């Protein structure tokens, strides 16, 4: 193997690629060739580093200098100054807090990552996701080896249980407990399903985990298979996630070639393989029983529970369904132990959480922070605050099915339980920040438009409820709502929360219910024909005409 004196990692995650990372990489390679550096310095495509808003991003190692907002024409300077002469090109270095503090000169020891704690994203932006060798060199497949050769399946389940890991897909159900339902059942076939049908608006963590570190999920599925006695794994991934699908397919093929998937893994007699199946565009398939229906070639309509999938899932067989981020936590837990995992995060929710920050926030992108961090720390710390001199209006945690939290909640520690108590949810970790230029009615109408489209139509409260809520908020925005509208919205929301069949209908009104609590006045003023933010066109034009 040849030796390189430096490595340049080019983020090849979807957001950076959309911002022109391909052209930047081509220009970099051209300039390096011109300078005769191609034998000394290696260019590697890697996974997401986080600051998607400031892409394309590259990192030069060994120093760990991160450059952002790059254009192809910047590459000659980076090659001439940094790679040839060792001088950092200050103007191009990433600055998390725009214009305020020093740029991030070393990714490793200061600035951007020091507020973050990377467990799930341990390899994203550090290794080439297409290289199983690099994954292994960073401790990859060691956890699988440890589990298969040094632990009984019961010990694996116990370790995950003791770690306190909770499902990162949204519901926060304890993962070890889920495994312990399936493990003792005797069946001729069991399945491990990785739920990669990421559809919650504002969530793109699973996409970037799979693009940046596909092996971490494959390894975890094999560990889960060993723990519960399943030899078949299925990754159900959104059909729109082309890059993730390609990388997963390549990763699975390489793992198979190296004997890390397939028959008799590590000579222990344990067999496990994964299959990659793609969805066809239905948000509800993120619900685990709907996902299973879809895998069976049917409409993705949720099943009645019980029986739970752990007992009777795919084709009626015991099935463990885990989210991508949940699985990515498994190898480090097996390697470093439950105690280590419990030392991160909060008592009730140990570990870290990957958040996607978006909306009216300076640094949109992906971060991983310990559970229990406050909204304020995320928004005004890592997030860089609210741009354009606007004020904070609300944050919606947990994606579109989460609640709207006003500024009184900025110091709330974020984990599953505290957010649920506040009427919101940690959910998938999407954090949508909305500034004071927006109108609450317009925002809620957009939430309900989403749900009325994505409701599968199976149960009445959700099918009719989402549609009627959309209608009511449209009427408010158009100045056609009656005075009793708030009462109607409240009743309808409550009926949906209590009587919908699955999580979609039960959580669809969360945003509405919390908004009624904290922004009731603004909603009522719409019923009186006025939009205080001046967003609802029908109302603003009406007041101008007066």
């Amino acid at each position, binding site marked *: 193997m040849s030796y390189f004196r430096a490595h340049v990692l080019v983020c090849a995650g979807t957001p950076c690629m959309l911002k022109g990372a391909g052209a930047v990489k081509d220009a970099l390679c051209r300039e390096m060739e011109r300078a005769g550096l191609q034998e000394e310095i290696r260019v590697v495509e890697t996974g997401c580093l986080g600051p998607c808003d400031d892409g394309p991003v590259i990192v030069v190692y060994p120093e760990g200098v991160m450059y952002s907002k790059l254009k192809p024409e910047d590459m000659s300077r980076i090659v001439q100054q940094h790679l040839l002469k060792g001088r950092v090109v200050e103007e191009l270095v990433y600055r998390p807090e725009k214009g305020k503090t020093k740029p991030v000169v070393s990714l490793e020891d200061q600035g951007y990552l020091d507020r973050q704690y990377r467990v799930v994203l341990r390899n994203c932006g550090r290794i080439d996701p297409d290289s199983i060798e690099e994954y292994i060199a960073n401790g990859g497949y060691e956890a699988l080896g440890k589990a298969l050769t040094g632990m009984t399946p019961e010990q694996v389940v116990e370790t995950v249980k003791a770690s306190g890991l909770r499902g990162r897909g949204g519901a926060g159900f304890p993962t070890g407990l889920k495994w312990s339902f399936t493990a003792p059942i005797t069946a001729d076939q069991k399945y491990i399903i990785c739920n990669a049908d990421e559809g919650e608006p504002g969530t793109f963590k699973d996409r970037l985990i799979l693009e940046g570190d596909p092996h971490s999920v494959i390894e975890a599925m094999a560990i889960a298979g060993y723990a519960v006695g399943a030899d078949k794994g299925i990754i159900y991934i959104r059909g729109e996630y082309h890059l993730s699908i390609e990388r997963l397919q390549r990763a699975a093929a390489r793992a198979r070639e190296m004997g890390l998937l397939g028959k008799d893994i590590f000579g222990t007699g344990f067999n496990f393989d994964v299959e990659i199946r793609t969805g*066809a565009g239905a948000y509800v398939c993120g619900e685990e029983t709907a996902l299973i229906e879809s895998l069976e070639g049917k*409409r993705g309509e949720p099943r009645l529970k019980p029986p739970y999938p752990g007992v009777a899932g795919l084709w009626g067989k015991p099935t463990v369904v885990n989210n991508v981020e949940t699985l990515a936590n498994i190898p480090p837990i097996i390697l470093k132990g439950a105690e280590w995992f419990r030392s991160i995060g909060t008592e009730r929710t140990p570990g870290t959480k990957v958040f996607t920050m978006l909306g009216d926030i300076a640094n949109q992108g992906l971060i991983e922070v310990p559970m229990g961090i406050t909204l304020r720390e995320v928004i005004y710390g890592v997030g860089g605050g609210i741009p354009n001199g606007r004020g904070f209006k609300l944050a919606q945690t947990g994606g579109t099915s989460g609640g709207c939290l006003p500024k009184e909640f900025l110091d709330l520690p974020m984990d599953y339980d505290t957010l649920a108590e506040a009427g919101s949810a940690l959910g998938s970790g999407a954090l949508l920040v909305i500034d004071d230029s927006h109108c609450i009615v317009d925002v809620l109408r957009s939430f309900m438009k989403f749900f009325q489209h994505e409701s599968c139509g199976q149960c009445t409260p959700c099918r009719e409820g989402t549609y009627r809520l959309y209608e009511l908020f449209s009427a408010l925005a158009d100045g056609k709502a009656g005075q009793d509208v708030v009462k109607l919205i409240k009743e309808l929301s409550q009926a949906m929360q209590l009587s919908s069949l699955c999580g979609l209908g039960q959580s669809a009104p969360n945003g509405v219910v919390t908004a009624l609590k904290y922004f009731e006045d603004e909603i009522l003023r719409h019923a009186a024909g006025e939009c205080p933010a001046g967003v609802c066109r029908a109302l603003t034009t009406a007041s101008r005409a007066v």
Partner: protein
Amino acid sequence: MPVNSATERKKSLRQVIAEHNSDPGALLDILREAQEIHGYLSTAVMEEIADQLGIPVSRVYGVATFYTLLATEPKGKHIIRVCESPPCHIRGAVNILETLQEVLGVNPGETTEDKKFTLELTSCLGVCGVAPAMMIGDQVYGNLTPERVKEILKTYE
């Protein structure tokens, strides 16, 4: 890529079904591949699939109309999917949609007269870091402005 002659299309559909061992459990995959061959899922195609798999046409139709990536109507050459989920909405997706409607002269769900573009709305594409976003075919475009949308459309002329 849609296959050209009608007999070839019929042949390759049979092949697809055979490759999946006429298993109704693989219906979603069969429909997706049938759509690649035919461009969309016509009643005739759905009847053929139902017949080969030994299941009612109603079940095939039910599945075909459930998923947004499956189409039961003919579509234009390029399908434009505009994300209108809340994160894109906050960042001005309404202007993007209005620009597309204005330039193409169609509403969501409709196809241009020259059969070149079908305009559709989609739920979150998972590229919120570069919102507002849309997809044309397999290609995702982010950080859209009305001007950029017009430029992008020109590249499909």
